[in-house]
């Protein structure tokens, strides 16, 4: 399989998984965004929200990294700048959700 086909397939699979996770997250976000400290902590420290939010983060950053790299492909001509932009994007898309998930798993009521 060609790398571009693989990338397209990953984009579509992650999009398919992300749709219900986005819906779940946004409904919950609306319900707790102005709530107090204890209520938000309760949301993040109980299951299944802890697991689903972690899953949402992994797929959201994976999907975004693939989508934004398409924008780089379309509009950045210089290969060196494009490679640097893609590497920065990939590092951010791996480490940022990972750190957040570690923090969430260390939160307690």
């Amino acid at each position, binding site marked *: 399989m060609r790398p571009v086909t693989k990338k397209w397939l990953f984009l579509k699979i992650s999009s398919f998984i992300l749709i219900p996770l986005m819906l779940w997250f946004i409904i919950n976000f*609306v319900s707790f*965004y*102005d709530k107090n*400290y*204890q209520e938000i902590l309760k949301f993040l420290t109980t299951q299944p929200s802890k697991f689903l939010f972690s899953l949402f*983060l992994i797929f959201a950053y994976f999907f975004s990294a693939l*989508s*934004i790299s398409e924008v780089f492909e379309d*509009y950045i001509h210089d290969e060196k700048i494009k490679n640097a932009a893609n590497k920065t994007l990939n590092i951010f898309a791996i480490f940022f959700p990972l750190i957040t998930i570690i*923090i969430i798993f260390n939160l307690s009521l």
Partner: protein
Amino acid sequence: MENNNPLSPHIQIYKWHVSSLVSIATRIAGIINILATTLICIWFSSLLFGESNYEIIKVFLQSFFGKFIAIGITWSFSFQILSEIRHLIMDLGYGFELKTTNITGMIVIIFSFIFTILIYLLGRQFI
């Protein structure tokens, strides 16, 4: 290896259609959503510093501006959800006719607002 792929023409070159508007808006909504998710992650991570530090964020989120941002994020997520569903249907080989792309594009735009209201009411437990 030198990349000889042509670059996309910049967006001001195209004549605007519903489908191009939805396509560009999807990219913008995607970027807004990942920035919003990043800010939400920072907000959640700040919970580690304890309840006293959380008060400033709470006051901001309870303000008019905070509500405006929450509704804006809800619309942005709604738009991306509907647009991704449209893209997945098109990937299955349906809806490529010009008339159909315009209709589905309009459905995405109109229903993103209806969806925002429904999600907000559902989240706030009004329905």
